[in-house]
């Protein structure tokens, strides 16, 4: 990330969620605190809230939201208690002279999570995209929804320039344009328990004067041993005993 920040004219660092705890096993003792601290150290620009974050429960999730220091996004999940957004529906990031709006959407896990109310993503986007579009040059949808569902939503909503999604049926080897609206769509890696967090997606693209994206190139970068450990990150992990 540091290397790319030095090289790129502007860098965005995004996460699609389901990042804080592991699926299918007991929650970590720190309840995602160490991951949020690590993401904060890397200066993530935004993260979508995923079902696993919701599974932390209201108390722990509120703590992680307070600690994050970067926007944790979901436009379709509300607290059931007062129907306010669990995180933020969207955020606006500055990229040189451009304003980039990032909207978060959360996958409905389909099991009872009493603390939350889920809204239908298509209705949310139909209402929110025009509002965000009016404030920014470029609109990004950041979501843990499956890749194909996210592409269909972007086509239906229109006005979305880039979709950063998760859960592909198969790992694409290039950035794809959706069939109707022509939104770019990318995903980082196909997750397997115990085998995740090993790749990072890298999209290089030009922002045109009207905010449209063109000239895209995408690759999935393996986080191999050739990338040296960052001393500050090593210190942070050591503090959490990992």
């Amino acid at each position, binding site marked *: 990330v540091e290397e790319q920040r030095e090289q790129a004219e502007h860098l965005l660092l995004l996460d699609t969620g389901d*990042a804080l705890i*592991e699926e299918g096993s007991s929650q970590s003792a720190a309840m995602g605190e160490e991951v949020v601290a690590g993401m904060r150290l890397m200066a993530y620009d935004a993260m979508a809230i995923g079902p696993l974050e919701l599974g932390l429960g209201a108390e722990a999730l509120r703590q992680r939201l307070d600690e994050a220091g970067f926007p944790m996004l979901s436009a379709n999940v509300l607290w059931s208690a007062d129907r306010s957004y669990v995180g933020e529906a969207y955020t606006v990031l500055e990229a*040189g002279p451009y304003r980039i709006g990032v909207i978060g959407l959360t996958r409905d896990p389909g099991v009872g999570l009493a603390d939350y109310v889920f809204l239908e993503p298509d209705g949310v986007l139909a209402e929110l995209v025009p509002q965000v579009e009016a404030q920014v040059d470029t609109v990004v949808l950041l979501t843990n929804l499956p890749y194909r569902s996210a592409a269909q939503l972007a086509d239906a909503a229109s006005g979305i320039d880039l979709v950063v999604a998760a859960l592909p049926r198969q790992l694409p080897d290039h950035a794809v344009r959706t069939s109707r609206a022509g939104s770019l769509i990318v995903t980082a890696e196909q997750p397997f328990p115990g085998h995740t967090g*090993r790749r*990072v997606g890298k999209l290089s693209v*030009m922002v045109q004067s009207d905010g449209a994206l063109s000239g895209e190139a995408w690759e999935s970068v393996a986080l191999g041993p050739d990338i040296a450990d960052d001393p500050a990150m090593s210190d942070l992990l050591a503090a959490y005993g990992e």
Partner: protein
Amino acid sequence: MPIRTIVGMTVLAACLLLAGCGSASSDSGSPADSGIEAGVRPELELVVLHTNDNWGETEPCG
């Protein structure tokens, strides 16, 4: 020439002068008039690094 005509022409000339009409010092050389589009932004090279499902084995690349 009647005095009223002279006064009228004087007032008209003063108005034209105040409005900058025909003045050599008008702002015709400003960027807006000279075709330089000050509002056009240069293209930006954007790199988006993105991750999903970060949680995994803690060994780097095990």
